[in-house]
């Protein structure tokens, strides 16, 4: 039977890990919905294996040996790079500078052409998608391991802290499975816009943390960072639309095919 103090460790580890699992699962979900689930799960699986090896090999020494800030800066920079490129494409489409494509029609036509040629449609591993899922799950997984080790060490209850973290993982993954289907019905450009905002927001938050920024409210600052990017992106769409309107008046064609704008 667990003491009140150990139950306290379970609850504290559950709540702290819940935030980290939500962050990791968000990125996996984003890669799964926008790239493909094979890449998302491969990245997440590889990260969990790496994490298991690290935890098994280092044990509680993990807290001292893994340079968590350097990891945050590296992962943050790559997420911002990836996120900004998606955000830029989505903004150009919203502003009408890049033509909006009917992605579903293009997909169906491509599928029909592949069938005619007798080819099988496979969803191969996307290197960028796999790497994004891998980095995020590894970083958040290490943070969860830090929580379990530090919370558990304070009350001599690593097992109780691990129980709390495992419960948080089950809750987040279970909820994620339920929201997956509705997300897949969101229009493609809207999804890419939201994904661009989220990746840029998470990347800025983690990168800033690694560099020494103290975010007010800690993880609660993430929605504020994403909201700031949303406001700035909306203003940029308006700015581009004004440029397009002005170009139309002077007779310059303003719409280009997708892919020309990178």
């Amino acid at each position, binding site marked *: 039977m667990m003491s009140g103090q150990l139950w306290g460790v379970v609850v504290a580890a559950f709540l702290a890990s819940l935030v980290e699992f939500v962050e990791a699962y968000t990125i996996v979900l984003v890669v799964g919905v926008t790239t493909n689930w094979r890449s998302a799960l491969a990245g997440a699986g590889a990260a969990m294996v790496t994490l298991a090896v690290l935890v098994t090999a280092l044990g509680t020494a993990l807290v001292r040996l893994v340079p968590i800030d350097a990891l945050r800066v590296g992962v943050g920079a790559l997420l911002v*790079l990836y996120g900004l*490129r998606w955000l830029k494409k989505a*903004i150009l489409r919203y502003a009408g500078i890049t033509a909006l494509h009917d992605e579903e029609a293009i997909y169906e036509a491509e599928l029909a052409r592949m069938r005619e040629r007798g080819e099988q449609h496979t969803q191969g591993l996307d*290197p*960028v998608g796999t790497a994004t899922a891998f980095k995020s799950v590894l970083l958040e997984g290490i943070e969860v391991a830090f929580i379990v080790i530090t919370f558990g060490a304070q009350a001599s209850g690593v097992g109780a802290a691990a129980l709390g973290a495992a419960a948080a993982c089950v809750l987040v993954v279970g909820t994620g499975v339920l929201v997956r289907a509705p997300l897949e019905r969101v229009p493609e450009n809207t999804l890419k816009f939201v994904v661009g905002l989220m990746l840029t927001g998470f990347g*800025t938050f983690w990168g800033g943390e690694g560099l020494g920024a103290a975010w007010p409210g800690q993880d609660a600052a993430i929605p504020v960072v994403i909201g700031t990017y949303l406001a*700035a992106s909306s203003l940029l769409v308006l700015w581009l639309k004004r440029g*397009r309107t002005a170009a139309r008046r002077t007779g310059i064609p303003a719409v280009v095919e997708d892919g020309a704008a990178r």
Partner: protein
Amino acid sequence: MNRLTAAVISAYHFVAGDAVILCGIAASFAIVGVLAHMGNIHGAGLGALMIAIVIVVLALSLQRERPR
């Protein structure tokens, strides 16, 4: 084209696809890192500066595509 070549080309396009974004983000992380190290700006100021630089980088990158 084999898988390795495709992966190398994909990585090249990812890194060099938009030089403004790549250089801008590298610069923003470097500036914030140096300021944090020197102790000139503390806490939330660093985060706010980082967000501002990222928005400027995005605007500069979009500037190239804006019809004139």
